């Protein structure tokens, strides 16, 4: 079975935010909930790089581990999803997430932040696939339609790679060999405890 991963080729990412708005468009993500965002490092200086970051669907996901109500589950192709029915909005997953992926409808105090929402790798949630209920809670389920996350499919310079881990690692390695430089697979060591050997 495929092991789904994200890889952002920072040497191609131009911080155009297509991944961000594609996600907003596909799942009608409300204002304030940022499932995906682009962070620019060393901003304004030679060597500046931008990386598009959302949930990396980690191996042995920290969020799933620390969740006091165990509302996470990992699908067969290693996508880390969760159930909004069980979630109590405590926010522990945000402290554990190395990539700041979990988002909450309300901000201010710990008391009532609402149910956590995060990138589902366009693969919905525990509700039946492609159902109305799934869409209203988790957004659309592209994986069930044989597609890939829209953020990667619409990335303007094809920097954001999504799909089976080995495949995208191979694509990235070929690119680096061909062009002679590469700033590495951002976040892979923390997320998947292994990285692309350059």
């Amino acid at each position, binding site marked *: 079975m495929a092991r789904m991963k994200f890889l952002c080729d920072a040497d191609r990412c131009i911080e155009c935010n297509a991944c961000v708005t594609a996600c907003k468009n596909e799942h009608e993500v409300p204002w304030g909930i940022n499932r995906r965002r682009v962070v620019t490092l060393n901003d304004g200086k030679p060597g500046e790089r931008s990386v598009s970051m959302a949930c990396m669907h980690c191996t042995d996901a*920290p969020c799933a581990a620390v969740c006091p109500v165990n509302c996470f589950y990992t699908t067969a192709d290693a996508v880390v999803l969760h159930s909004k*029915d069980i979630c109590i909005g405590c926010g522990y997953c945000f402290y554990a997430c190395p990539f700041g992926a979990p988002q909450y409808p309300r901000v201010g105090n710990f008391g009532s932040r609402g149910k956590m929402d995060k990138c589902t790798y366009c693969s919905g949630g525990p509700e039946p696939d492609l159902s109305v209920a799934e869409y209203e809670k988790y957004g659309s389920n592209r994986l069930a339609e044989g597609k890939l996350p829209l953020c990667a499919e619409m990335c303007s310079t094809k920097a954001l790679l999504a799909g089976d881990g080995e495949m995208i690692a191979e694509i990235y390695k070929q690119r680096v060999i061909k062009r002679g430089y590469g*700033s590495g697979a951002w976040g892979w060591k923390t997320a998947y405890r292994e990285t692309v050997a350059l």
Partner: protein
Amino acid sequence: MRRSVTLLSTLVVASTLLAAPAAFEPVQAQNPMTQDGQNPMGAKPTADSVNEEFLFKNADKITGRISIPDRKAANLIQPQGREYQSFREHYLPWIGAAFILGMIAALGAFFLWRGRILTEHSQESGRKILRFNTFERFTHWMTAVCFIILSLSGLNYIFGKRLLMPLIGPEAFGALAQWAKYSHVYLAWPFMFGVVMMFVVWIKDNIPNRLDWAWIKAGGGFIGKKHPHAARFNAGQKGVFWMVAGFGVAMSVTGLMMLFPFALLDINGMQVMQVIHSLIGIAFIAGILAHIYIGTLGMKGAYDAMGSGKVDLAWARAHHDLWVEQEQAKTASGPQLSGRHPAAAE
């Protein structure tokens, strides 16, 4: 990449992170631009590209610039999340179990060994003396009730999913956990208020003095036969007082920080608060277990102090002789049983 973190180093790391200066000098690429701003000779953006190892050498987490107002989103990678995970899932449950079960076991052993401490019968038993008035009892019980609920809902975060969820199923446990969270959040305020009130009310009788040292040397009466002298609160009780005050404040501060996430702290600060809150919480619970034991099962007659507020004179004479004399001196014609407020300390 990050050396594996033991428990103690978690605390060390956590404290350094907390203390680390917030604003780092903006990090430079490997070969920083020669003149800033004007004409960087041969600035080669592709060759100068930053990468993870370089950035991790300069800071513990990789942050950058974002265009959305949510400042937290500027953290690209904070590996401390993994450390927080390993602390919460590998160390905390064992620490919790060790402390709490350990304390219960210790109390059990003590009970088996010492049994219930009774008061020798004397002519004064049967007569009562007012130990705590209504207000003091009200404060104690408010704090105590809140503490019990808080500790249960607090432990639920650690052990709920391990022990309770398999029994009652995810949905039910989810609902219960939701209510546990609400109760934890909302009852924290009466608890904090109670701790403050108790502190104010009893601070004057809890100042440690040489008498307490003597009490400790006498092992609280367990070593040797003679009851060491004790004023209104003996050293043990003063210990509980200061524990409740100290831990109470620590729990309140870390709790408030967690209640208003990211108000003052960044992600690492929040993780540190979590760690401290859980560790102190466990210690606090263990401590209070002992207090509950000695106040109920461990010593006959102790419960009345907080139950009805009026204790047996013989019991008082035995355990708090100086306090009884002081009370009787104040009331020349012997103990007055009216609900009058006890005499303020001289």
